[in-house]
């Protein structure tokens, strides 16, 4: 049993016992999933109310770039999970390398997303172009902010590569990954 697994045993956190990482990260994860869930719900309802506006807006997006970003982020998640596995068996240098790969791919995600924004702005599209783009920029921008924050968190936990800290940081990273998996089809693909 690894150090992290030992810490997962009953430690007085009630239903948060048995989860990877610091139990408090799960409070954050739950609140983030609730917030993004409500945000996505608002997006879905707004599309039903104004289907033509949303169809026009969606046609101006670049689903190929967003699809590429999905590949980048799931690969980054894999690297982060490998980093956790290495930290659990106390291979800290290896864990740092995996986390570095995860952060680099996170940077690639951000670069692709910013390129996408630049293309949209070149077309004269902005936050106030239509309700679609207001929600699109807020939703994806808020997610991009989480990606940037996740990179910082991975860098911080990678310094010591302590198993529980790495687990905690990667839980946040996988949440960001999970959110994108849901945002991508709803915003870019579903009509």
């Amino acid at each position, binding site marked *: 049993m690894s150090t992290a697994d030992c810490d997962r045993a009953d430690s007085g956190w009630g239903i948060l016992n048995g989860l990877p990482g610091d139990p408090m990260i799960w409070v954050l994860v739950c609140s983030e999933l609730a917030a993004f869930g409500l945000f996505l719900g608002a997006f879905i309802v707004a599309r039903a109310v104004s289907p033509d506006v949303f169809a026009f807006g969606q046609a101006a997006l670049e689903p190929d770039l967003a699809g590429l970003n999905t*590949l980048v982020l799931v690969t980054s*998640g894999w690297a982060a999970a490998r980093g956790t596995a290495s930290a659990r068996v106390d291979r800290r240098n290896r864990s740092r390398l995996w986390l570095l790969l995860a952060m680099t791919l996170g940077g690639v995600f951000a670069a692709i997303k910013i390129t996408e924004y630049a293309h949209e702005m070149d077309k004269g599209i902005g936050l106030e172009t239509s309700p679609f783009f207001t929600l699109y920029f807020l939703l994806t921008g808020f997610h991009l902010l989480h990606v940037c924050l996740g990179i910082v968190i991975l860098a911080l936990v990678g310094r010591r590569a302590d198993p529980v800290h790495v687990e905690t940081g*990667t839980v946040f990273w996988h949440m960001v990954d999970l959110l994108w998996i849901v945002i991508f*089809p709803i915003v870019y*693909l*579903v009509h």
Partner: protein
Amino acid sequence: MRYSPDRLDLTLILLICLALATVAVAGAGPGAMIVDGAVLTFAAVKGRRIASDYLDLRSAPPLWLGLATAWLLLVLGFAWAVSAVSFLLR
């Protein structure tokens, strides 16, 4: 030494295949209920796999994987239901 992929590697391969399938299916036809359903189903499978293997909820009490799955089904199911109703009313 021969390398054999573990569960994390298989999860990555599955996620990449589903991401490629998502883009391929979405490009196949605009707005049909079945296309939207397929795209959202792929997202649900990807999300559950991330929750199970990347977040490691497979090793946590079953409640947590259940909650993550419920969140995915709620958001993606709502997206599909609203899309389907809009499609039928057109």
